[in-house]
């Protein structure tokens, strides 16, 4: 039986713990709130383990990433793709954050703040999407030119 990678085993342990403790808690207390919280902790961990298991299986069919440290296709390693560009500085997160600030002030002081929040949220969101799209296109162009 193949060894379960640590990155999945971690979530499986969480899932097992949540489900066992959640079950034990129910039979000891018959209390709903805590049981639901504990069981959901277990179920969510199991879900994470399942998704990671799928990703690891998919990685197994891909060639290993290059470099002097690569240890073969079955080696435990990162699940992500390290390609891509570092984003340039952008005020979009700050502007979007200002919008959220106005929203929470609106919760305390009334709807005018929430109305005012529309402007920074739209501006921040649009500039965020534009920057992300520009980077995606630049990455694709760069990959096309680097291919033989």
């Amino acid at each position: 039986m193949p060894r379960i990678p640590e990155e999945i085993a971690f979530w499986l342990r969480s899932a097992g713990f949540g489900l066992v403790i959640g079950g034990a808690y129910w039979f000891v207390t018959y209390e709903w709130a805590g049981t639901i919280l504990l069981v959901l902790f277990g179920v969510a961990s199991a879900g994470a383990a399942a998704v990671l298991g799928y990703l690891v299986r998919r990685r197994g069919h891909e060639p290993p990433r290059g470099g002097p440290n690569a240890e073969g296709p079955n080696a435990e390693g990162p699940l992500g793709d390290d390609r891509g560009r570092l984003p340039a500085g952008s005020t979009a997160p700050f502007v979007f954050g200002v919008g959220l600030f106005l929203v929470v002030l609106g919760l305390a002081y009334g709807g005018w703040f929430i109305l005012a929040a529309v402007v920074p949220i739209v501006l921040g969101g649009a500039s965020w999407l534009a920057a992300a799209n520009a980077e995606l296109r630049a990455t694709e162009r760069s990959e096309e030119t680097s291919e033989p």
Partner: protein
Amino acid sequence: MATIADVRREPAEPIRFDLLAWLSTTDHKAIGVLYLTASGLFFLLAGLMAEVMRLELAQPGMELVSESAYNQLFTMHGTLMLLLFATPAGIGFANYLVPLQIGAADMAFPRLNALSFWMFLFGGITSLLGFASQSGAAATGWTVYAPLSENPFSPGPGMDLWIAGIGLTGLSSVIGAVNLVTTIYGRRAPGMTMLRVPIFTWNILVTAVMILFAFPPLTAALALLFIDRHFGGAFFNPALGGSPILFQHLFWFFGHPEVYIIVLPAFGIVSEVFPVFSSKPLFGYKAVIFATSAIAGLSMSVWAHHMFTTGAVNLPFFSIMSFLIAVPTGIKIFNWTATMWGGRLRFTTAMLFAIGLLYVFTIGGITGVMVASPPLDFQFQDTYFVVAHFHNVIIGGTVFGIFSGLFFWFPKMSGRRLDERLGRIAWACWIVGFTLTFIPQYVLGAEGMPRRIADYDPATGWGSLNLLSTAGAILLGLGTIPIVVAVVAALRRPPDAGPDPWEGNSLEWATSSPPPHHNFVSLPPIRSERPVFDERMRRQGIDPNTPGGGVG
């Protein structure tokens, strides 16, 4: 191709302030610095509040602040220290160090990372704005128990600002946690398997997972409370058929893991500091990972030990689970001690604060086992014994760790060492000040002094111990000044640290100080959890895998 040696010759950039650059940064290192700076300012503010409260209690009959203001002060002191200092400080270190330790160029989602910071900052400011409102800031205690936090008992915008601000901060923490987990899972350098990930990063992974499970119940509780307050809801108001106990379940399902959410990053820090300044590998790397995971799991199942006296929870279940959590915590304390055992110890400020954590946190752990016992908890509930216990845990488990991490990694962040003499003065003040402040509070609690009171009867005889406690608090305040001075002074000096001033173990020491925007030009081979140590040994012609290779 550039080598590590080339990177080490790169000059450190001068420290300069460019507002637009800070507002628009998506670099994980700058965001880490922003987190640490903002949380540091919240820490100083919360510390000032603590000083005012301690002066108020120094003797019976003091009237520095009104009772209403005192209630606001202890509420916001707890809020600031737990949610706006300790939690984000850990996230700040994580932001700066996790990509470096795993050999990545940045976080998985850099712009989302920046948004997390701004949400945290604006959330914190929102909760503080309550002081400027007519009703004053929230005054319910940081636990905002319903029905005290419901409209009839806490009217006005101060409570709403707290709910909205902390809700936003919580959302920021969840986004930050998703980013950290994704980064650790997806951005590790080739060769870095999970069991070669540095121990600080392991602690951050476990912390991030805990945030993912613990913060949503808080957000739910706050949303339901807001509905109760403004839309005629009856979730927590017993007069309308609601259940205050449900609020406590939701709050403490967040609240107890929160203790470990703030403590585990500090445990990660000292787990890096002890090996470096003992010139030994961490004793039981895998055991420490197991203990960290076990602490996280158990901490999700002990929430209702905060509710023993409600009469609505199962005492044996929560008591046993709370006792159990002492086991993995004990494993960690044993492993840190064993790491130092027989090592070539260097008593730098970082190491002194790490040892301080052992002393202070262990007292908190022992008294934690005491209050996990229902008969004792019934006696100590809502007394100064509990106040002393959780300050032992939280100051010991976070502040000492954070100061240790500051002295350890400040040279990496800025290229400049912090003044060791100032650091030692601060350490001495914190050790003595802490003992003076909180040991008397255990006695006061055992004598029955309730927490959250602004005054007490002179006939109780509590004056002398309170005066001693206040003197200790003043020493803690004074002990913070050398740290602030050391940071300011270091930033005014030219860089003097070099890439690896302490002979570190993990990858952040393989690049310049501060690191370039993309972090690394090249990476050393990663064959263990100590790649930089391995590389240093290889350069000296020693095989790090031979018994005793480079040890001691």
